[in-house]
């Protein structure tokens, strides 16, 4: 058991965005979070690296345990937590630095100065993100010269460089063309071997293709959580059935 959510409620001011969520995820799996817009799936994803902290007026109750440690405990160092839990965003957001410096960023802010180690890690991360062959000759070029799909893989490489144990992905392919999307999906499939991945997606087929387990959210509630194959073939709840077959949402 690795990631456990216990009785989590989350409020934006008066609005309750998550209602009593209980869920357990296992190591080295891909968990897909699905549901209509505004159902709370992105909010739920951001619980794990405490990105919700950046928003005003947020109140969270309950426990989120990673390795048995409640990350909402007072003793938790948020920056330290975020290093263990990487995140990839909907829109690629590279820094206006070189390709190399983008990947090295996470290492540098950790005070790592060993040049050889940094070069090794950058290379490995880019290889893992399936970007190395495309960029190895232009590492010093600005990250903005890459295409959207390449930028997104760069952001993944940037995340992998700090060796997280869990990678959160918030609709990582929604802003990309089909070919780039396919590359990202292949990549996710590979990364599963080393990382625990939680991914929010709008795309039913994508969820079916890449995830081991799927959680369906609706109006801030967790409706159903099960093996992906089960969710997409014979879900327990009618709401889930309606959503995955495209009857609403």
């Amino acid at each position, binding site marked *: 058991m690795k990631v456990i959510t216990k009785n989590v409620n989350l409020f934006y001011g008066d609005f309750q965005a998550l209602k009593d969520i209980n869920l357990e995820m296992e190591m080295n799996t891909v968990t897909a979070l699905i549901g209509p817009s505004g159902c709370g799936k992105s909010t739920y994803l951001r619980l794990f*690296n405490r*990105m919700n902290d950046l928003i005003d007026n947020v109140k969270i109750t309950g426990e989120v345990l990673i390795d048995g440690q409640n990350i909402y405990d007072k003793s938790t160092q948020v920056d330290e937590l975020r290093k263990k839990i*990487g995140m990839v*965003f909907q829109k690629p957001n590279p*820094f*206006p630095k070189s390709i190399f410096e983008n990947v090295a960023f996470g290492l540098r*802010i950790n005070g790592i100065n060993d040049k050889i180690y940094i070069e090794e890690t950058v290379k490995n991360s880019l290889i893992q993100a399936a970007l190395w062959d495309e960029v190895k000759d232009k590492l010093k070029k600005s990250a903005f010269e890459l295409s959207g799909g390449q930028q997104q893989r760069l952001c993944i490489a*940037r*995340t992998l460089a700090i060796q997280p144990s869990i990678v959160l992905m918030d609709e990582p392919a929604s802003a990309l063309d089909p070919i780039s999307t396919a590359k990202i999906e292949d990549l996710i499939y590979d990364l599963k071997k080393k990382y625990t991945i939680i991914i929010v997606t709008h795309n039913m087929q994508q969820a079916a293709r890449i995830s081991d387990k799927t959680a369906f959210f609706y109006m801030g509630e967790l409706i159903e959580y099960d093996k992906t194959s089960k969710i997409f073939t014979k879900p327990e709840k009618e709401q889930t059935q309606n959503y995955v077959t495209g009857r609403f949402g």
Partner: protein
Amino acid sequence: MKRNNRLKEKIAFTIFSIVSFIIVIILFLIIAFIFVNGISVISWDFISKMPTDGMTGGGILPAIVGTLCLMLGSIVFSFPIGVLSGIFINEYLKDSIFKKFLSLMTNNLAGVPSIVFGLFGMSLFVNHLNFGDSIIAGSLTLGLLTLPVIITTTEEALKSVDNSVRIGSYALGASKLQTIKRVVLPIAYPNIITGLILSLSRVSGETAPILFTVAAYFLPRLPNSMFDQVMALPYHLYVLTTSGTNIEQSRPMAYGTALVLILIVLIFNLIANIIRKKLGQNVKMK
């Protein structure tokens, strides 16, 4: 009916374009007038010699040096405080009454007439802190005057930084300070530098704040320390035009001084525009 409306539009737009060009022509007239009259005065001697013969001959070296001292002195004081303040307001403060209060105070300070800065500087720095008429008193007064400019340009520069890169940095475990230092400031700095240059240009031309805090009527030597009085270009121009010993004969010197002042402003504006264009392009998000 329709044709009538078209005609009205045509007339209105023609008037607007004419007025806009008149304004630009006024600008060119002022610059050209001073250029034509001043260019013959400008020579190496003019910018490298002391004034002589009751300010009707020689050069304006002490005024140039004095103005440079004031530019440097004021910016040393206001640039760090202004940038830090801009960072705090934009990066640390959420929309709150305190933030509104700070921006209100910044705007109020920006609206204070320059002569009031002069009064204040004289009272606090010259008299109470006993700096006397000195570079330091003048620099502090001018620094205070440019503080709002630097704060607002810093704020604007930081605001234009896309929030997604901040979030990206936090997600990698960077702290707030690291995010600002390593991600936000590198993106924002061309615009911050632009603000710095424009405020330097403003300092070079301000007269009222230095009248009673530093400016010397006639002092044909270079300053030794920051507690020295100095001449300054804008005040020198004022003196040459209105209260010199021989206004008629020092007129050419006045044209020359005005031209030097205008050139400083033109050059600084040009540099600012180049920086904005060149450096701004590198960090533009696609």
